[in-house]
Every structure is written in C-alpha cells, then in structure tokens.
C-alpha cells in the first residue's frame, strides 16, 4: 500500500486540478448562455438566408455571374475557412474541426489556401508545416458582424481576382444542446439547381431581379457570404463553449470520483498504520514485561 504521505499529496493535487476544472466549467457555462442567446437571435437570419439563396438558385434566369458555377470549369485553387477555437480543453471540439480540415487537405488534389480562425488551429497547421494565410489573425471569441465583414472582404478579394475559385467553410454547427456536428460547406460558387422538367401548362414562376439581375445577384451574394460567415462564427463559438462545458463537467466528476477512492485508500492506510503501531507497542511492552519477570526470577 502506498505511503500515507504519497496519497495525501495526490489528493492535494487532484483537489487543485478540480478547482480549476470546476471554475472553467462555471465560466464556460455563463459564456455558453450568452452564446446561446446570440445563436437563437441569429438562427432565423441564418436559415432564411440559406433558403432564400436556394430559392434564387432555383429560379435564376439565364445569367452569367462570376458567383455561379460554370460547367466544365477547372478549379485548381480552393480557399478554405477553418473555424477552430482559441484554446484547448474543449473535449473533441478542436480535434474534430482540425481532423476534417486535414481530411480535406488529404483528399483533394487541388491547391488549398487555408484561412484559419482561432489560435489553436493556426498552431496545428504551423506545427505541421502546412502554410496558412498570414495576416488573418481573427479570434474565435465574441463573433461580431464587423469581423464577418472583414473575413468576407479577404475571401472575396481573392475570389474576385481569380486567385481562388472555390470557397469552403469548415465549422461546427449546433444540432441541439447535446449534439454538435462539424460541417464542410461550399459557399462559392453557387450551384444552380438542375432545371426540373415542368409540364408546359404549369405556370413557371419567374423572379424579377432588380435593379438589374447582375447587380441584384452581386449584392445578394455579398450579404449571403457575410451572413453565412457570421452564422458559422456564432455556431462555432456556441459549440466550443458547449464542448468545453461538457468536458469540464466530466473532468470535475472524474476528479470527485478519484478523490472519493483516494480518501478510502488514505483511511485504510491510516488505519493499518495505527494497527501496526499498536501491535508494535503491545509486543514491545510484552517483551519488556517478560524481560523484567525473568530478571526477578534470576534474583530470586
């Protein structure tokens, strides 16, 4: 059995760690509440935006736009926006995002330009010697619309100049409070849905795009990309806090369990030590007694 002192120092160290994980749990749960509110506020926008774009793409007239997918076009360079966390200790949150990004890099034979949000993601890629876009130092904390605008400008500038021909976003979406899912979405170019065969007598709804189709599409795409990036940032931030909260709660529970077991072990060890001491004292006393008795007998 381990020595008393050793057990005691282990208990002490676990108690200290538990204090930290417990504090982190509390911090992330308050942050989580805020993030949840922001998420609930932005979700209608995020989903309406996506359905609106899908609708536009269904009904779009014959129109050439740099934002639409062209048939037979060779796309050799892809821009990928990876949204990871700034800090670790969030369970498998960062791991999942980075694994998906790595998978993306491994699977594609095209050139990939990485734009990484979150310090941990940057560290991961630079540690592996994978080049990432520098001057793209955005944090994953406090997602705001102006940050989404900056990210959009960076990405669209490259897209419009033809430096990259595709824009993907890898982020984590909150499925519900228990489940979040890492996702890879291609935001540009937009894919036209295939014209379905409509019988001639059915009224084909047609949209008027104003002021001119080109300008309307340009502006809609601009708000779509900003909105999507903002939504992805908010979803990711919320998922991160959620993952951290769950991880820290589990860590605190594990610490409690360990402490419980160690306490039992400590008490046993203490008991054994006392018993042993008593035994030693008793046998010592008895030996002493025998000795004095023998001495008395000798005198007599």
């Amino acid at each position, binding site marked *: 059995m381990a020595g008393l002192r050793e057990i005691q120092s282990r208990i002490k160290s676990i108690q200290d760690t538990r204090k930290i994980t417990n504090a982190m749990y509390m911090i992330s749960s308050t942050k989580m509440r805020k993030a949840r509110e922001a998420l609930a506020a932005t979700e209608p926008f995020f989903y309406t935006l996506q359905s609106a774009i899908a609708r536009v793409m269904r009904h779009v007239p014959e129109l050439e736009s740099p934002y639409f997918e062209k048939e037979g076009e060779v796309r050799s360079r892809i821009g990928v926006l990876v949204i990871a966390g700034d800090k670790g200790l969030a369970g498998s949150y960062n791991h999942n995002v980075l694994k998906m990004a790595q998978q993306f890099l491994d699977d594609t034979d095209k050139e990939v330009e990485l734009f990484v949000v979150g310090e941990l993601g940057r560290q991961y890629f630079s540690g592996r010697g994978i080049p990432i876009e520098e001057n793209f130092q955005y944090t994953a904390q406090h997602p705001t619309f102006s940050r989404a605008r900056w990210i959009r400008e960076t990405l669209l500038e490259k897209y419009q100049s033809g430096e990259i021909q595709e824009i993907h976003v890898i982020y984590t979406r909150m499925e519900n409070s228990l489940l979040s899912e890492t996702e890879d979405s291609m935001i540009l170019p937009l894919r036209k849905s295939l014209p379905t065969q409509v019988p001639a007598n059915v009224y084909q709804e047609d949209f008027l795009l104003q002021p001119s189709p080109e300008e309307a599409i340009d*502006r809609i795409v601009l708000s779509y990309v900003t909105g999507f990036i903002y939504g992805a940032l908010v979803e990711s931030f919320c998922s991160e806090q959620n993952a951290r909260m769950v991880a820290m709660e589990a860590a605190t529970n594990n610490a409690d369990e360990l402490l419980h077991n160690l306490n039992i072990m400590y008490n046993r060890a203490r008991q054994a030590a006392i018993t042993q001491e008593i035994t030693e004292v008793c046998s010592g006393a008895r030996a002493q007694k025998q000795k004095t008795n023998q001495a008395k007998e000798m005198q007599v």
Partner: protein
Amino acid sequence: MASFSLRIISSTRVFYEGPCRCLIVPAPDGEKAILAHHEEMILALREGEMRMQIEEGGEWLYAALSPGFCQVAHNRVTLLADTVERPEEIDAVRAKEALERAEEKMRQKQSTREYHITQAALARALVRLKETERFTH
C-alpha cells in the same frame, strides 16, 4: 385594405413579423414601395432608411437598414439585412464617432479591401445619424 405579410429579419433578431400595407425600401437606384400583390421579385437593398405602414392611414414606422435584399413571392415579403434598427435604438454619439473614424480613415492611404470596409462603415454611420436626427425633431 389589401395587405401582405411581411417578415423583416436582421442578423441578430426578427425585427418585424406580421401584416403590412406599404413598405418603402432603399434600392440601389432609388426608393421602392411595395404594396399588396406585388409582382414576384428579388430586390437588392442598399443601406438607407426604410419605412412601413401597417394599416391604411396608420403611422409610418421608420428604421435604418444596412445592405441586404428583399424577396417578394405570393404576397409574402421577406426582407433580410445585416442590421435593422429603429431610430430610438440608435446611439447618436456612437454613430457620430463611427462617422468621424470612417472620415479619418478615408483621408488615409488604404488598400482596396480597407477602402471597401471604410466606405461601407461611412455609409452606415451616415444613415444612422440621419435616422437619429429624425427622431429628435
């Protein structure tokens, strides 16, 4: 009086959901009014002031809008914009500071990207200020 159902959604909230008689929005080539049974259309919006009247002869509600778009289909209108704010919600001091900041930046040499951002910030600040002035009068 005929009305249509309207949903105004900004990135942080659902601004309005309900019936509406007349909606006037800022399009890149001027203001546009939408009445009931408007033709199906998708309209790009620039930053500016929008107003809506819920009932015939009712009060006009104003709001400051940042760019977005508006979709009309089957007598339903969905307006999506980055931000939608009522005049009384706008912080005039902050808007003024933002305006000054943007003007300052405009005078400096910038990259194209910075220029776009600053220009948009300038336009937003101007719209906000204009709205707060309306409210205080």
